């Protein structure tokens, strides 16, 4: 499969502060690649390096098989990006902003196409309004319209759902799915695992400027060994019961009134049945995938 982005040993430091220490990643054609990390992990710095806004201190970035540093203009002609948040010329109308950015890109975008883009992002009827009158969500939508102006092969979106209301998040998610169906390769950064899980097919988790793990979403978020927490009235008795059953090999521990064990999703119902048959009161059963637990821990530690 064609590699669209290849990043090797990417590093960036600002004075003595090392923002990115070692990032390696590969994005293939047609991927919706989730770029995940807690706040301050180095996501935006990496995206800035991918779009040529900042220069890496070390390492290589290749896009469409070409080194970014030497072919920046050529590469950017096939890329649409929103870095951090889309900021436009507030004193101009949304439509005028798109016309100007189309001219800057050197593409001859007919009025029909611009109207179509406003339609795609759900801003129809608001194109003549000044951007300064737009809400954050509307600016995000306009940002996506701007990204699509030059019909890019690669779309880079840096936390596009930040600050949006639930309906806005769903709309952006649908829009990304629509773009993927159009055959675009998408790199989507986020600090919300569930968001990446819903949209992406491959993902990377970074922390403290380093790659933690990279792979397919289905593999990384496998449900073969879930972290299950059972809130039960007699945890010691429940543990004894489970240790005498077919779940003896599962790693079981007590945390307050909760019982914690690692089992596949399919076994949860059987465990519940076993405890109920022993007349134990089960108040709640919750589970997390190992990566989810790990990511939550990362996010928590970074707070």
């Amino acid at each position, binding site marked *: 499969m064609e590699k669209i982005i290849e990043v090797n040993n990417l590093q960036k430091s600002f004075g003595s502060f090392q923002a990115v220490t070692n990032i390696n990643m590969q994005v293939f054609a047609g991927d919706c690649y989730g770029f995940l990390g807690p706040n301050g992990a180095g996501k935006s710095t990496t995206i*800035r390096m991918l779009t040529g*806004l900042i*220069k890496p201190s070390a390492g290589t970035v290749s896009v469409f098989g070409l080194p970014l540093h030497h072919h920046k203009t050529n590469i950017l002609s096939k*890329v649409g990006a929103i870095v*951090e948040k889309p900021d436009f010329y507030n*004193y101009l109308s949304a439509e005028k902003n798109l016309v100007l950015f189309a*001219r*800057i890109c050197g593409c001859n975008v007919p009025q029909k196409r611009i109207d179509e883009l406003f339609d795609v992002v759900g801003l129809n009827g608001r194109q003549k309004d000044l951007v300064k009158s737009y809400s954050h969500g509307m600016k995000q939508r306009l940002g996506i319209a701007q990204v699509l102006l030059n019909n890019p092969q690669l779309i880079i979106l840096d936390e596009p759902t930040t600050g949006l209301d639930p309906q806005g998040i769903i709309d952006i998610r649908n829009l990304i799915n629509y773009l993927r169906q159009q055959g675009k390769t998408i790199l989507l950064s986020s600090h919300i695992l569930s968001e990446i899980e819903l949209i992406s097919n491959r993902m990377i988790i970074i922390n403290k400027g380093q790659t933690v793990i990279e792979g397919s979403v289905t593999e990384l978020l496998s449900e073969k060994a879930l972290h299950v927490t059972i809130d039960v009235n007699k945890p010691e008795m429940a543990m004894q019961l489970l240790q005498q059953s077919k779940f003896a090999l599962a790693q079981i521990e007590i945390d307050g009134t909760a019982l914690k064990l690692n089992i596949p999703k399919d076994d949860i119902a059987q465990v519940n049945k076993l405890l109920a048959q022993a007349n134990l009161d089960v108040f709640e059963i919750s589970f997390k995938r190992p990566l989810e637990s790990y990511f939550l821990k990362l996010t928590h530690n970074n707070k």
Partner: protein
Amino acid sequence: MFLNLLLVEIYKICMKPRSYIGFIAIGAIAMLIHIAMWLDGRAYISMVTQSLEQSFNIEGNILNGNLVCFIILQMLIIHVPLLVAMVTGDLMSGEAASGSLRLLATKPITRSQIVCSKFIAGLAYTLILLLFLAIVSWGAAYFIFGSGDLVVLRSDSLVILQADDINWRFVAAFMLAYLSLMLITSLSFMLSCFSNNSIGPIITTMAIMILFTIICSLEIQLFDSIKPWLFTTHMASWRLFFDNPIEWPKILNSIYILVIHVVLFFGISLYHFNRKDILV
């Protein structure tokens, strides 16, 4: 591609409300001076020429368009740099502050193209502002007060220029004044490339101008060696065109120093912006 970018930059300047402050200020000041000279010009002229009238017999129309234009230029040319810096000092830093620079820099254009298009757009704005100044000072003064010989009072001399010998001097003076304002454009633009807020470059440009002007006006031996190299020494060289005879070596030297500064400031802008990490 570059022409598109340049037209976009000029369009952006045209659409910013602050771009019109300079035109309003120049128009208002010129109009006030015209009204004042129309109503009270003769008394003003006789007050200035009072001491001369004891030795000379002055005949003809001294209060004419050429004199009024010269007075307006003397007054306004000091303040026009501020009006220029207000727009050109915002060209790069304004976009950095608003975040649109980030979007612009991810487009398929080189950093050099961004710098050049903005700089040329800034120069075009400066030229249009100066042409406006020429229209409201020279053009309007001609229309209201008519033509005539120009009497220029120096601290130690009196220069009388014939009416038919003045037009080319005004054209040349405006051209040299444009070179001075190009320098202000390039200085404020350079500072703008270093800054992420639009007020900083404007204030710094004016601070540098004030500082250098003070150094130029201080009669201290320590500064004598640097004065010829300070651009403020040469910013009022347009006045040399109203001397008789004209001191061409002085004018050429001023042009040389001003051009060096413009090239230097633009070169620094280009070098810095090409290496700059865009973090805003």
